[in-house]
């Protein structure tokens, strides 16, 4: 909770949270807000923007704006699912690998090596063939395949502090593993994990669309941001501006995620606390200068 309060004390943190809140709203309400049926085709193919079609129509005459809104939920949830699966499957064993003995460490390290060595698409196709095709299965598989990044990041950050005297001091005080993780490790592991999470959310959009292209996960004609971008790119000669809208949405979301990750990194740790204190002090001084009459400012 402290981290959230500190992030919100930074301007960049507030901007990131505001943008991501808008994206979340879009994901929640997008399909309801779509003015037209996103799957309905018409003879007005590749039409320019107009009052009826704000962003024009695609090569099958479907309303692009409606497809963009309708596709927001599956795109955002899909990439979130990838990132959160990777976080849970990767970071938790990564932190525990330092604490739960050599056998656990060895097994998790070898599993991670195996996952890195697996060819991504082949593995995804094989698992989908076993579990059945669906967006949830596809995203879970992708999350597992991305998890080595989180395993490595979490393990490296944990290793750096696990043998430090202050963690040993906590052990000597009788602290449990849960306490040590919550009290000492979390603040050190969170910043690099936040950066990895932001990066993975960005990659998630691309992965959702790549899998859609192969017929895995989201099935055509259901729209996704990545899918729209891919199909618009095929008609660049007719509508050179068309990829701008889905590209802008993906870009803004990834940018906001990165901004948030940077803010989390900036406010974490000793330096972060000092940074937030300095900002608060500056704001406090400005407030005082505003409320104090000009003659009594000194």
């Amino acid at each position, binding site marked *: 909770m402290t981290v959230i309060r500190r992030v919100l004390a930074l301007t960049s943190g507030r901007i990131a949270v505001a943008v991501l809140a808008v994206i979340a709203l879009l994901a929640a309400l997008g399909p309801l807000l779509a003015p037209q049926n996103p799957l309905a085709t018409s003879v007005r193919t590749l039409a320019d923007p107009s009052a009826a079609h704000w962003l024009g129509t695609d090569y099958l005459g479907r309303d692009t704006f409606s497809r963009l809104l309708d596709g927001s939920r599956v795109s955002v949830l899909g990439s979130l699912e990838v990132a959160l699966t990777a976080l849970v499957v990767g970071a938790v064993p990564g932190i525990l690998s330092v604490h739960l003995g050599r056998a656990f460490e060895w097994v998790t390290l070898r599993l991670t090596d195996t996952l890195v060595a697996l060819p991504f698409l082949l593995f995804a196709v094989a698992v989908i063939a076993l579990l059945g095709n669906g967006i949830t299965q596809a995203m879970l598989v992708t999350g597992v395949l991305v998890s080595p990044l989180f395993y490595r990041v979490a393990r490296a950050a944990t290793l750096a502090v696990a043998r430090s005297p202050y963690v*040993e001091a906590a052990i000597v005080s009788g602290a449990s593993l849960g306490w040590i993780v919550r009290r000492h490790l979390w603040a050190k592991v969170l910043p690099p994990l936040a950066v990895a999470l932001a990066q993975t959310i960005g990659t998630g959009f691309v992965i959702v669309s790549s899998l859609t292209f192969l017929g895995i996960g989201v099935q055509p004609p259901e729209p996704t941001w990545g899918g729209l971008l891919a199909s618009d790119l095929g008609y660049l000669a007719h509508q050179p501006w068309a990829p701008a809208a889905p590209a802008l949405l993906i870009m803004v979301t990834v940018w906001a995620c990165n901004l948030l990750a940077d803010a989390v990194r900036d406010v974490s740790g000793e330096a972060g606390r000092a940074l937030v204190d300095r900002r608060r002090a500056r704001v406090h001084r400005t407030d005082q200068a505003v409320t104090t009459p000009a003659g009594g400012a000194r």
Partner: protein
Amino acid sequence: MSSNTPSDKPSSALEISDLDVHYGPRRRRRQALRGVSLTVAPGETVGLIGETGSGKSTLARTVLGLVPATAGSIVVGGEDVTTYGRRRWRALRRRGVVQYVFQDPLRSLDPDLTVEESLSEPLLVRGVPRAEAAGRIRAHLDRVRLTEELLGRLPGALSGGQRQRVAVARALVTEPRVLILDEPVSALDSANRVQILEILKNLRADGVALVLISHDLGSVAGVADRIAVLYRGELVETGTAHDIVTNPQHPYTRLLLGSAPTLHGAPADRAERQALRALLHA
């Protein structure tokens, strides 16, 4: 001789018998401690002296359960802890019977936690309510000569002496019966050194058994009742501080005493030190 349940009045706060400790995997096993026996009575101060790598910190870490013993026994506050598993160790630690002040106070305090958060940790871990912990911390501040205004600071914003006193205060909040301090004054200036030694004297008067680990005989001789000299993992000499300083028996102890840096070392002293070194390496 020893039991697993705490007796009402243990005659010794800490009793180490024939302790062996090994490091490393089986093929490259290295012996860190060999047949170490040491007893510390309540209210007694024992100085553990030895050069770097002699096994001083390993001995302390074994007493705290951070390093497993290969052979021998350790009895802390009347409890034989030698065969304790992780769970029983945690239960013992939460009672705060034995506490440790780490060598480097800056690194032994979490840089992200305020002084108050660090001091309250041993109490919160035991399930003491936050408000009660805050009160108990404040009661201990006076004991280590710290003021309440420091509670909100981070370790990085404290002086070396203040950090060391915070580290001592953290060890004291659980009212330990045995307190092990690793090089408590070696990194401090003389004013802070005196302050820490004064605090330790008061603790001794309160009946706390103190083990002062140091590589410098001079910094411990003035406060310790007894001194144990550790050399290459073995206790080579144990005696009262007075006896060790005035009548050292082992060549290594004599070498330690003769190694105090001086600008006017006579050739005869140098020759004696060389002879002692030759004797040790023989």
